[in-house]
């Protein structure tokens, strides 16, 4: 055997293999410090938010920011409180109008009388409208493109000058059916 494989070759091979094994073995730790802490983003999926929403839509909760009831009444509408606020994500900013379909209840109107609603878009006052009668209402007004940003949240607030306050403290404003932006 020694004739076939020189002994010094064997020694050299073993030495090289040993050196490699000792010097180069991957050093994998098995205990770790806590890593960088992530900050989960709160709020609903952006992709669930569109430019228009019906209150009966399953995605409606994702659009509601404040003062709109969680419960859908009659399968199609929700009560608001004094500052109903919705958010939308717009695919474009050009030639858009804010559109809102809502009703003023006969029962609350008797108690509150005419109400004034200020329509705000991204913190800017779009319009202020006085509603002198109960019933179904439709609001529509073009919005300047410079007020809007495509792909980002657009916040719409309807500020009611008065609401009906129930004996149990519950506040009822208007009956919202659908709303958003249309071209």
């Amino acid at each position, binding site marked *: 055997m020694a004739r076939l494989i020189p002994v010094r070759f064997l020694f050299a091979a073993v030495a090289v293999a040993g050196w490699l094994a000792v010097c180069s073995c991957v050093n*994998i730790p098995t205990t770790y410090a806590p890593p960088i802490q992530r900050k989960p983003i709160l709020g609903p999926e952006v992709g669930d938010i569109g430019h228009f929403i019906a209150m009966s839509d399953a995605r409606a909760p994702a659009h509601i920011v404040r003062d709109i009831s969680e419960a859908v009444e009659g399968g199609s509408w929700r009560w608001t409180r004094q500052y109903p606020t919705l958010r939308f994500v717009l695919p474009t900013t050009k030639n858009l109008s804010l559109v809102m379909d809502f009703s003023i209840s006969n029962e609350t109107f008797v108690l509150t009388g005419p109400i004034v609603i200020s329509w705000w878009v991204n913190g800017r006052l779009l319009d202020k409208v006085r509603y002198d009668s109960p019933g179904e209402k439709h609001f529509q007004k073009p919005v300047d493109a410079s007020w809007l940003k495509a792909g980002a949240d657009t916040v719409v607030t309807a500020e009611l000058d008065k609401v009906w306050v129930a004996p149990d403290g519950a506040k009822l404003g208007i009956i919202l059916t659908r709303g958003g932006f249309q071209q």
Partner: protein
Amino acid sequence: MPEAFHILFGASFTALVSLALGKLLLRRLRLRLYRIEEHLLGFVAGSACLSALVFALAATRLVYKGVLLATGALILAVAVRQGVHRGRGESFPPLPRWWRGMFVAAFAVFGIFYFFHAMAPEMSPDGSGYHLSIVARHARERGFHQITTNMYANLSQGVELLYLFAFVFGRHSAAALVHFSFLIVLPLEMLSYARRFGFTKAGVAGALFVFVSPVVGIDGSSAYNDVAAATILFTLFYLLQIWDQARTPGLLVAIGLVAGFGYAAKYTAFLGVPYALGFVAWKLFRARRPLLGPVAVVSLCAAAMIAPWMVKNWILLANPVSPFLNKVFSNPYVHVSFEEDYARHMRNYEGLANHWQIPVEVTVRGGVLCGLLGPLFLLAPVALVALRRAQGRSLLLAGLVFGLPYAANIGTRFLIPALPYLALAMALAFANARGCLAVLVVAHAVISWPSVLKQYCAPHAWRLDRILVRQAFRLESQDSWLSRKWPPYLAARMIEKHVPPGGQVLAFYGISDSYTTRTVRIAYQAASNSVLGEILWTPLIGDYQPRHRREFRFPTEALRKVRVVQTASGGPDQWSISEFRVFHGLNELPRADHWRLRAHPNPWEVQLAFDNSPVTRWKSWQTLFSGMFLEIDFGGTQTVSAVVLECSTDQYKTRMRLEAMDASGAWKALAGEPAASEAEPHLRLRRAATEEIKAQGVGYLLVHESDFGAQDMLTKTEAWGITPLEESYGFRLYRID
């Protein structure tokens, strides 16, 4: 045409250097062989030597064109100087004229067909995928580097190192032509073996049975390695038979080297080593001759070829036989569950109703098991008739041994290593039936020709379907041909176009990543890729999300360590924890830098349970066993009154216990089963997932239209925070914003 020249130069230079090395070795060992044997056996033994030499160059990162050219030229010069190009051995008696004519005709027709396919742009799934992507990476990086994102890089790559030698000069097609050279050598060796042992006609028939077999043809003319492995094993068998006849001591060195080269070429060919050792030991035992010396020579020579691969994997990946045996050699790079799933998948191909379909599938249909041997092999049981002859018994034993790995992977090509023995035994069985062998050869050749083959095989069977002369000589450019015919190539080029150098892409669908220089991380191909894949799927699969809250509350106490222990066992559940939180009263303790976290098993991913991310989780990546744990060492005493775990809902059998080490250093059980409640659903998980993936260094996603979640990503790009860059043949490339 210059491209064709480079291809031919790369392949022929590699083959010539192999041949020269082999003939130098055989001459040094003073072996007496027939002239044709000197060439054939020399080529394979020399391939082993060249592979080992390239290993050394790759380990020292010297894979430069100049170094390879100089090394090869030096070897050729030495070979010429020593006159090895002049054969010394005798020639075999000439073949009978009719048989010679038949062999030459079939060998030439199919050989030319295979040659053009090998030289044409490489478009085999695995060849243009992992086989050559790893070779290309070695070429770019001048040798070995630690690759932890592709478990195929952990397989032994003895043949791929020959491809590397050729690739540096002629790229993909040169590598495929090197495999083609093994395809040419195999039938010639079979014939030569048969001539030496006196069954020439059966040898002609057996050699052609293998050579014209459709799966052998496409495999051997692609950058795979199955035919090379089969050639290496047949060389080993042949050398052992010669040794049995001649008992030349020098043969034992060649036997050991070639046996070890089998392992280096493909893990499944490791059986060559026990086969050779068993053969030598048994023959010497029967002859009442000393065993130890010859067995030691074979063992040492085999070890010389095997050890480099084991040591490499041990050094780089903590597992000498990676990607297998991960339970024994636990490591962060391949999950235990992946190995189990992979093994299960390889034993049960999708589309195969039961194992009784295998005979027809591997011989006639070839659609599910990826290729067919040809209907001729339905006659395989006839091979048992060869048991009447000593050579028949040797052949069938070798075929049985080398066919054993088929049980682990039932793809047709995994039968190739056993095929030469089966084919020769079948031919032996028919040898005495006048005219029968010739009829079988002609029939097999006719029904294996592409235009006939397509009449009966499955439409998508893996096979050659046309002669690619224009493509081979690049009269149609590689880009044009592959763009027309091979969508995974387009995906690779799309990545090359949009992803900057150094960029990484996460994908679920294998592509021809040898055609891009960017790192493509296929989700199943490494532990870290699987983690990324699950992160991406978490927003889409409710069961992956941390919706279960498990609270262990106990009297406030100062503790040094706390750990949650799994008490259940058994599959199929795996244990996972998304977040492990510690409370004092109602306040969560902030995770301090001096805390030390530990887990068993899979300690390497423990941080995923402490990162405050709802899309990551520590996971056992193996089925439940009692004693799994996650532990926090507070690095001192810490006042604690509750531990809260946020867990995914895809684990039903898990049972947990809380243990702690108190101030005195004693371990004790703090609480049994925790109080269960539902956690508040997390929102905006899609964005969290892509942000996490980006934080881990992957900036791009390659999504195929058939991938899970592809439609969601397409319609909710904003929610995911991704931008589509390009789409091609169902592949869509996104950038994570």
